[in-house]
């Protein structure tokens, strides 16, 4: 046989992956798409609704549109608040950690502990911790004469959720930054000393540029997670008081499972998904472009 043996049976090897993707991603998404363009009535009867659900969702004059835009605003505010605190704080803590020595393992384990706690447990811990009557955090703030009550006051509820997220996830930024800092060769610090650079200049011109790559990862991870946050606020505040901490995911569950309003919920989850992907893409592009700026 002089012909090159051609055997297409190898494609069968891809089948398990295709099946997996089909059942884990494609089918659920298509189900959602299906609901988003139809109106489902009792008894499994469906009526074509075209882009009706999407029109309602994106029109803030409608009830669902107003809910959606409010929740989206809350989500964005929460994400930016969390990023704004967690990234600088994480870098600052990483800078304070010793570069070498025996104690570093201890510090890293202590820092990483919050990350090992499951979301709903974190929520429960903070739910109790923040109670104004018996919680250490809440009672201490009340004892200091501050007006604090996370079940009645929106500002208190917000502060609790943000502080909880900072407590839970700043360690991730610390670990990433620490790894990035450790990757900087000693010669850079030595050169900076010889060049007479101040501590700030060393940070600004050596450490920060070298951290850029890990910070892209940190910002992306933290943005995605804060934008999709569900469990902790659900456990701590249940979305309240009122709808003060009702984020998109919480609202989505309320609409889909509470009201069984499948058309609205489907349209909302698709738009929600699209916004997450778009924002991540924008972040990624900006931060990597920043990195490439000046390339020939």
């Amino acid at each position, binding site marked *: 046989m002089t012909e090159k043996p051609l055997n297409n049976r190898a494609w069968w090897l891809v089948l398990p992956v295709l099946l997996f993707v089909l059942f884990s991603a494609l089918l659920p998404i298509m189900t959602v798409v299906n609901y988003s363009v139809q109106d489902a009535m009792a008894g499994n009867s469906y009526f074509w609704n075209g882009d009706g659900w999407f029109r309602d969702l994106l029109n803030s004059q409608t009830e669902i549109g107003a809910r959606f835009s409010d929740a989206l605003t809350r989500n964005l505010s929460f994400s930016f608040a969390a990023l704004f605190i967690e990234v600088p704080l994480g870098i600052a803590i990483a800078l304070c950690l010793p570069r070498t020595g025996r104690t570093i393992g201890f510090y890293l384990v202590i820092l990483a502990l919050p990350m090992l706690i499951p979301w709903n447990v974190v929520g429960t811990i903070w739910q109790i911790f923040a109670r104004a009557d018996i919680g250490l955090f809440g009672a201490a703030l009340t004892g200091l004469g501050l007006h604090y009550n996370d079940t009645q006051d929106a500002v208190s509820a917000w502060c609790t959720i943000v502080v909880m997220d900072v407590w839970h996830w700043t360690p991730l930024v610390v670990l990433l930054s620490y790894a990035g800092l450790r990757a900087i060769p000693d010669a850079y610090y*030595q050169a900076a*000393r*010889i060049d007479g650079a101040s501590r700030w200049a060393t940070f600004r011109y050596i450490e920060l540029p070298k951290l850029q790559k890990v910070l892209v990862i940190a910002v992306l991870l933290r943005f995605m997670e804060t934008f999709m946050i569900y469990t902790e606020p659900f456990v701590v505040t249940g979305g309240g008081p009122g709808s003060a901490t009702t984020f998109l995911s919480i609202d989505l569950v309320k609409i889909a499972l509470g009201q069984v309003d499948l058309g609205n919920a489907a349209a909302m989850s698709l738009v929600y998904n699209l916004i997450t992907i778009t924002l991540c893409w924008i972040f990624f592009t900006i931060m990597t472009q920043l990195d490439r700026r000046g*390339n020939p």
Partner: protein
Amino acid sequence: MARISLEGISHAYGGRTMDPSDLALKPLDHVWEKGRAYSLLGPSGCGKTTLLNIISGLVTPTTGRILFDDLDVTHLPTERRNIAQVFQFPVIYDTMTVADNLAFPLRNRGLPAAAVTKRVTEIASLLDLTPELSKRARNLTADAKQKISLGRGLVRSDVAALLFDEPLTVIDPSLKWELRSKLKAVHHALDMLMIYVTHDQIEALTFADEVVVMKDGRVLQIASPAELFEYPAHTFVGYFIGSPGMNIIEAEVDGHIARVAGQTVELGATYARPPAGSTVQIGFRPDFAALAPSGGYAVRVRRIEDLGRRRIARVAFGPHEIFATVPYGVSLEGEEAGMTIRADRVFVYVNDERVYGEAR
């Protein structure tokens, strides 16, 4: 510009120690004269970078004092010594342009903007970096980056010494030569004290006025390249400098002769009897041992290599394998040959140290 004196400098990583074998750098006294170029040469781990870092202040020596002229700087931090150092891997400030990189050490020291610009322009033209000045430093090649590191050292007019820690390691071989001649040119132009660490003997010998050969934390010899080649003070120097290195063979030295494998080698001087139990060796460069079809010491030729400028033969001298020169015009047939050695170029080493005899 200054003279740098080391007085009894030694260093042990991890603090004070009584055991001399723990010393990364064994006690050393030396004066580095201004305007001269020195090389620290030795295999990896011989303590040359430690010595360099002690001079620059990145490492504080365990014992001893460092003086810049008459000022004791032993405990002064790097930033307060007038030292510039270029590292093995180019260190540049990624986000800055080349000009900002060069200006950085001056701006940190609060120089007025006009003076900074003037100085940066001068140094950039000296290093042929002028066309690159407005480019971002991170996108340049390794040799251009290394020139920037060098420039950041040169740009300060108060620098007493410029230290190099194997600066050409990451440079493309074809550019090494160019950058090295640039260094030489800079040295001549600025008349600075330069200390250059390397494990490459060609780099060391071509760069320096004086070479410091080190091994296991000890300085073996400080001499000009020619002197290192012609009069190695330690068997390691003889072996390390030159290619092939010095022939070093065990011998029994008696007055002005050495007995090697039943033959008697003439020495250029008369030596006192070495202490009992010591290792006695004689050493001579292949360059001073010539082969001929007959005459001189009987050797067996193993292999001859033509290196272009000269021919080197690997020969058996009794049980010892050594190198000798085959002069052009001499043709050897068969294994048997005769070797003549210039008696005044045969040195005696006792426990690896050269000993000196009385001239005959």
